């Protein structure tokens, strides 16, 4: 594991780890990093912040809209589906990042999900990755006209929409955490013009 604090204990009065962390983030071309709990409020502000930042660097409006849309879907997926273990408060954190390298924007998320949900999510993602843009469109329309929406889900529309916007394969991984939970890593990318 890469320790982003370079092994420096935060309690020490040596403050250089704040700079180290910042520098590491800049080196890895992160535009925005948020780690903590997620809510609708945080979703709104992070999406707007991403939009503002892309605008400031002169990105094209359709790319900005894509990033905005993907950001909202990613964050709402986390705030609706992330599992929150009760035992250890700190472990409830999820992570969201936007990075930019050369011509690509990378949007990544990480959050705990409960183990019984892993298989279904994995199947859903694998299926999406086998579909062409036309098939994704059909799948989106089928899903939309399917069963009525319930408050907690959007029937998997979010990930299909992300794949449609990104036009690239979705990258994901499930890392076993304990008997109850796994850590779900997800990444999508968007080409800048």
């Amino acid at each position, binding site marked *: 594991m890469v320790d982003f604090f370079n092994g420096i204990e935060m309690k020490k009065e040596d403050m250089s780890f704040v700079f180290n962390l910042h520098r590491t983030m800049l080196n890895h071309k992160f535009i925005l990093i948020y780690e903590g709990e997620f809510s*609708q409020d945080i*979703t*709104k502000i992070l*999406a*707007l912040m991403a939009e503002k930042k892309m605008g400031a660097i002169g990105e094209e*409006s*359709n790319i900005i*809209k*894509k990033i*905005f*849309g993907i950001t*909202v*879907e990613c964050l*709402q997926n986390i*705030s*609706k589906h992330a599992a929150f273990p009760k035992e250890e408060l700190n472990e409830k954190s999820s992570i969201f990042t936007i990075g930019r390298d050369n011509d690509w924007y990378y949007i990544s998320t990480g959050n705990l999900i409960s183990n019984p949900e892993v298989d279904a999510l994995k199947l859903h993602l694998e299926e999406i990755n086998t579909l062409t843009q036309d098939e994704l*469109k059909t799948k*989106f*329309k089928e899903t*939309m*006209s399917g069963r*009525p*929406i*319930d*408050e907690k889900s*959007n*029937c998997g*529309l*979010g990930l*299909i*929409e992300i794949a449609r*916007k990104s036009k690239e394969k979705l990258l994901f991984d499930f890392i076993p955490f304990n008997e109850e939970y796994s850590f779900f890593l997800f990444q999508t990318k968007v080409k800048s013009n």
Partner: protein
Amino acid sequence: MDKLIIEATDDTPKIILDPEKNLYEFSGRSMPEDAAEFYLPIIQWLKTYKESGFKSIILDFRMEYFNTASSKMIWDILHTLQGFIDDGMKVNVRWFYYKDDLEMEDAANDYSEMFSLPIEKIIL
């Protein structure tokens, strides 16, 4: 019949459903946490509108962005309107979007392919 006006917030659109002015319009951004909670009263209003004996409606969409949960609810609204047509009501949907807004154009195309009710695309 009472009008339904909902002011825009930073995650919900402005809703105008006003029989007196004959103005029916959704505009802005839609990304609520619970899309069903926001849109179900609107669908209910439309049903009451029909039951009150109104014979036609022109519904304008002037959306800038909506999340997938909202897209499902907009589908539900169009589905409801489609039902009105089948019952003999005259329904027109006008979908306004900016020329370079590919996302909103695509969304209009998606919906057009799913319903026989007329969805007129109007470029701003």
